């Protein structure tokens, strides 16, 4: 229940903030209706911290080991970059502590070259093996991981928030009857009590929420690819990779129901957005499909990847896969070059990881300028044409 202390000054800020309209002031009192979903936004809005959430009781903490387990991800049998990022980050936390890092894979057969993982700082690598496991069946992978984790009882499980990771992790969390925080952009481990502080964007990227899973174990989070840096170390001890053959009884019939009929590769003439070093993106200000064709040409000349705002995608000037922002792809390039993007907060949340942002927008009031390292208030079509001219000349000479 929402608890309101006597510090409340009836200022009404929380009333304006509540997305459900559950708060109102009546007869000199702040009242909470049953419209309240305990989302907690009002707590943040209160200038005198008079609002808190009261929950009935705290359950005892479930026993766990001091292991941080990374649910490793394979794509065509190869370890993904996102997995290496998680191994590196977790290894940085646990250096010289009682905690240790392991990487677990679930696969039909053990992938090769897993020794490389030790150079990212893990102390053990485990492969769960069974012929029922398929890389593109989240149900089978989740079943394998769950049966291992039920026995090994790690303190923390980290998964990549990739398309497959976002499908697999919820199934593992449900099987382990524990909590799961999606798409974390920041994690910090309290080395004293082993609590993982998990921060993620919420409400469409409008606010950030820090979440804990206090009493349940393991604590589980999926992490956005590209948030942490992977780093190879020297002088790491290489242990043998442990192969665990799972019995068929780990897999229930419903978890093995998926039959794959066809896999088609889609031609991808550009680098995937979340790996891109330079992104050239366009928004409403580009004005037309033709404008986007010019932008695509510039992108190619710059050896960059193309992005688009929601407005541009909704106008069908650019395909959905180019959409950047909270509902599209979240990116962290070295350079983000934005043309004619006004900078809705959901878009800004999706580019906050960019090292450098250059914004070109004719409107000096556009929110993107506040978010930019370099602001250019100019006609973007002329700027694009000038850039194309210079780059074409360079190519010729």
């Amino acid at each position: 229940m929402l608890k309101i202390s006597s510090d409340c000054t009836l200022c009404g800020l929380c009333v304006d903030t509540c997305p459900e309209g559950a708060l109102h002031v009546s007869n000199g009192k702040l009242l909470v209706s049953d419209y309240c979903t305990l989302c907690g936004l009002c707590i943040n809005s209160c200038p005198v911290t008079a609002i808190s959430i009261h929950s009935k009781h705290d359950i005892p903490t479930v026993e766990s080991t001091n292991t941080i387990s990374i649910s490793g991800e394979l794509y065509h049998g190869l370890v993904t970059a996102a997995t290496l990022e998680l191994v590196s980050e977790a290894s940085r936390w646990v250096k010289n502590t009682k905690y240790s890092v392991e990487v677990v894979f679930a696969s039909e057969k053990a992938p090769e070259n897993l020794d490389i993982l030790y150079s990212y700082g893990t102390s053990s690598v485990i492969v769960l093996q069974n012929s029922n496991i398929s890389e593109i069946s989240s149900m089978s992978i989740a079943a394998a991981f769950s049966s291992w984790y039920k026995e090994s009882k790690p303190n923390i499980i980290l998964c990549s928030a990739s398309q497959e990771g976002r499908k697999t992790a919820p199934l593992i969390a449900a099987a382990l009857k524990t909590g799961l925080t999606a798409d974390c952009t920041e994690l910090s481990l309290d080395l004293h009590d082993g609590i993982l502080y998990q921060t993620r964007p919420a409400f469409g990227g409008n606010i950030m929420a820090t979440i804990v899973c206090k009493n349940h174990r393991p604590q589980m989070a999926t992490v956005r690819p590209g948030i942490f840096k992977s780093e190879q170390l020297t002088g790491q001890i290489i242990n043998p990779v442990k192969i665990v053959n799972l019995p068929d009884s780990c897999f229930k019939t419903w978890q093995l129901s998926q039959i794959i009929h066809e896999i088609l590769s889609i031609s991808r003439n550009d680098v995937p957005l979340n790996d891109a070093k330079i992104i050239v993106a366009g928004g409403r200000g580009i004005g037309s499909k033709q404008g986007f064709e010019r932008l695509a040409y510039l992108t190619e000349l710059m050896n960059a990847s193309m992005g688009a705002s929601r407005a541009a995608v909704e106008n069908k000037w650019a395909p959905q896969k180019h959409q950047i922002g909270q509902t599209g792809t979240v990116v962290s390039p070295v350079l983000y070059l934005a043309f004619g993007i006004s900078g809705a907060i959901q878009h800004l949340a999706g580019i906050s990881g960019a090292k450098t942002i250059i914004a070109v927008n004719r409107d000096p009031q556009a929110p993107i300028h506040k978010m930019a390292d370099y602001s250019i208030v100019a006609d973007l079509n002329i700027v694009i044409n000038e850039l194309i001219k210079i780059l074409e000349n360079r190519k010729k000479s």
Partner: protein
Amino acid sequence: MAFRILVLIKQVPDTRKVEMDQKTGNLRRDLMGAIMNPEDAHALACAIDLKEQFPGVYIGVLSMGPPQSEKVLKSACCHPVDEAFLLTDIAFAGSDTKVTAQTLRAGIKAIENEGSLFDLIICGHQAIDGDTAQTPGQLAYFLERPCALGLDFLEIKENRVFYRFSNNDEIITASIKLPALVSVTKNINTPDFPTVRGVIAMKTKVIRVFDRDKLNIPLDDCGLNSSPTRVIKTFFPEFSRKNILIDGSEVKCAETILKIIKELPIDA
């Protein structure tokens, strides 16, 4: 017997319209408004498409949320929906995805006990207020039914649901056995507006409400009390940037852009 579909619908604040009060730094709720979660509208359209293909298909719609969720169920009822159900109780407030999935399971079991199993449960891929995409998979786990998530296409053939989804640079076609649960993205269809006849028909449709008592869920097993995760802090994202204004003609600007890029740590 008729093919039975259940569509899950969530009422969400329209987070795409959020604005911040510049003076207080708070979210302006009055600008937000409550809507049907956009991808849930695609889930409903998917059910309606199946009903048009296979006459006699039954469509139920189910929502869990505060009492005001009735509004989105009513808007769903403007379409050819047979029954609408709402799981609501103040004790459900603060449910995280695990507890939401468990409560939905209890609701679905209660409805199924009155009739028969749903052949297909269709959800939107994710809700715009949380963006977690966790509840559909977790619900499938608790129902012990096969699931396929984030689908761009689906069809029913020979007691299986066939579907397409994308993963990295691949498009995968696969199928699972019914009864099953699927979640769909906005790529799957374009929802139709309700017809005038649909809006009139909505007025006679009754929303059946289930509370905690009716679902027989102990107080300790629902809402915030039993949710493993807790939000302990919320704050506004902070963006700190250099904010350097580049002046001059468009030609000058283009040259400056290339100069900045040259100094960045990018391997050619």
